[in-house]
């Protein structure tokens, strides 16, 4: 039997809530899947849709975006702005055929270490089931090949 597929997942999180929640998962010694790589931003308001596209270009099989619950933003409104952008960008991804199962959004507070760990596990498992993002990988491979017609 072949090795189980280990998805590559990139997470963009705000430092005040989800990053702190991830730290709490650590201090609570919760165990979760090691497939996710975290990029820390000051606020979800700083998370640009471009980051998601670049993570996919880097070969990510899945992307997570997470920040403070509505009303809890350290910067008062950053997550409200982020939420609108996500709504729009998500619809756009869906329309261009990027499966929404591969780009997930969540609110995880600094107190939700457990939610963070569970989320990492469930997303990793979901994407493992979906398998590698072959279609996007095809595009990446094309960029590395010599010019065709």
């Amino acid at each position, binding site marked *: 039997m072949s090795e189980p597929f280990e998805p590559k997942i990139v997470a963009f999180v705000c430092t005040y809530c989800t990053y702190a929640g991830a730290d709490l998962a650590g201090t609570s010694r919760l165990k979760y899947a090691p497939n996710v790589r975290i990029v820390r931003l000051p606020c979800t308001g700083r998370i640009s849709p471009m980051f998601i596209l670049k993570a996919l270009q880097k070969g990510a099989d899945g992307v997570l975006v997470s920040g403070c619950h509505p009303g809890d933003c350290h910067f008062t409104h950053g997550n409200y702005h982020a939420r609108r952008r996500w709504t729009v960008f998500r619809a756009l991804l869906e329309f261009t055929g990027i499966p929404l199962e591969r780009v997930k959004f969540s609110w995880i507070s600094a107190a939700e270490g457990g939610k963070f760990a569970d989320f990492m596990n469930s997303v990793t498992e979901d994407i493992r089931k979906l398998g590698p993002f072959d279609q996007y990988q095809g595009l990446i491979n094309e960029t*590395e090949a010599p010019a065709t*017609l």
Partner: protein
Amino acid sequence: MTRILLSDKLDNCVARWRKAGLTVIGPVKKETSSSYATVEKAADFDFGIVLPDRSIKGLFFPQTEPMMGYTIKKQDIATNDFAPPTEKRIIFGARSCDASGLAIDDPLFGWDYKDDFWFQRRNETVIVTIACTKADDFCMCTSLKLAPDSTKGSDVLLRPLQNNKGWLVEELTDRGREAFKEIADLLLDGSEQAAPLAVVPEKFNLDACVAWLKNPENFDSTFWKEISMRCIGCGSCTFLCPTCHCFDFQDEGDTYSGIRRKNWDSCSFSLFTMHTSGHNPRSTQSARWRQRIMHKFNYFPGKFSVNSCSGCGRCTRQCPVDMGITETLQAISTLKP
């Protein structure tokens, strides 16, 4: 007496050439857009297209071409060159203007530096041109002193017979003769009349235009601003042009490795001449349009003794604001030199 290729033999020809290792390319219409694309059988061709939307240029000078790969190591950077492709191809059904465009650009790509990517592809590609029996309102080859049956840049010229029956074959170069040896037994001898060529009216007096352009006083003429006022600075005329050849280099990659690419660029773009300082010597769209015309009909012929235009008319045909070389040169024709 001439040799004839009948349409119903084309399928066999394609099969022969493919068997001989040639990629067969021809005018193809897919859904909403036409281009020169790979065909597998005669039915894939669409000879009814007056002119494919995209010119033949991209087959020799692709819109993006990886030149070199690089890997960043601890101490140094390792590079690996991408070799020019060695694929042998035959383009069956090129238009005269497109084939001429290639010949126009040959001196450019071989001038101070021989562009291997261009010439490798040129050498490995047989161009079989079909003379035009149809033209549209935008065709203007005759204004450029070319014709629907110009042989410039072609290896073989085919003249259509009446009723799409086939073509009269005129082998022009050794490369063409070589390719047609493969199908020699599929050709007939005959003395049929070719269908009448498309009538392409002459739209402007090229000599008068060139004279006006060469007069240095006209460089600062208000004409340029007037004629280009509606230009929106998109690059579609340059990108569709069979002779426009400007390019830019771009490194793409991640932290560890990447590829240096040669990408099409356009003098219509405001960033084309932008200096690092922020100064832009061609800061207005009129200056950029002037550059395009001057380059094609003054600077380029000054260097290579040929105008950088083959009269395909794509610039006007696809222009979102109905501009183009025709209108500009028509207007110049009426000006005092």
